[in-house]
């Protein structure tokens, strides 16, 4: 089980959380003007990162808040947890996408 550091509650077991996929996906500002391919990219396509991945988690059985986590998908090491809406912290890593 991962121990995930909730920014509000502190370190808790993974069983208390639910996963929300890749973080920092911006909705196109003018959805009517983007092409179908660009819209499909926004809705469906996500990175499949080997290395440090920025992802969303929700502490559903705790404070029920969404937040972001930087996790290494190879080692499962969690490098940072930060509020939803905040910019990711500067991390020293190499990532293959």
């Amino acid at each position, binding site marked *: 089980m991962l121990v995930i550091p909730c920014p509000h509650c*502190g370190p*808790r077991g993974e069983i*208390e959380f639910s996963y929300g996929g890749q973080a920092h996906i911006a909705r196109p500002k003018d959805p009517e003007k983007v092409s179908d391919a660009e819209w499909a990219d926004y809705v469906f396509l996500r990175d499949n990162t080997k290395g440090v991945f920025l992802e969303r988690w929700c502490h559903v059985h705790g*404070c*029920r808040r969404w937040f972001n986590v930087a996790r290494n998908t190879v080692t499962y090491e969690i490098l940072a947890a930060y509020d939803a809406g905040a910019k990711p912290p500067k991390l020293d890593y190499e990532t293959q996408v």
Partner: protein
Amino acid sequence: MIESYLRQSPLAHLALAAHGPGSGKPAGVHMAERPFPGLVNLRGPGDNANFHGAFKAAAGYDLPVEAGATAGSANTTALWLGPGEWLILDARGGPKSGPRIAESLRAALAGISAAVTDISESRACIRISGAKARAVLQKGCPLDFHPRHFAQGQCAQSVLARAAILLHMTPDETAADGPAFDVYVARSFAEYTWRWLEDAAREFGVARGER
């Protein structure tokens, strides 16, 4: 014929051997239902001094702002649930305490952007206490129960055997008796949670009722 290790007597699920005369064990755990606690969910702007001031004027104490902290008076206790979310409770309040707390908070917070919701009927409250209470909860809950991390007067939301719970380590028992926890669980999970706890506590001996 069924394998002997799979055989169960018809009433095995009630864990009757765990308690009552004849169990041959001193009770390591006491379990009781606390009926009709008054529970009011309060949401509001946690960074607004007017909101905190209005609450303090009504309740007589400050809302806790640290994770897992509680605060209270003789009448009510406030449990921190998240940023900008609290549970105001009166565990021994009786059926009318929920509406009473909600009404007084609504009056106090009039004009402030806050939500006051009486959720008394939605939860069951199971009091589990005794020297082995921690050991029982640890079997199904991923929280760190070491006294350094989870002390008297603290609360936490988590899961117990996959049921969502709110744990409150009540401050009204002395350390010599062992810790006492109030487990708040959704009403529809109450029987499941009670039976799960009773089964988990079987090895320590269970006494029904509060000490």
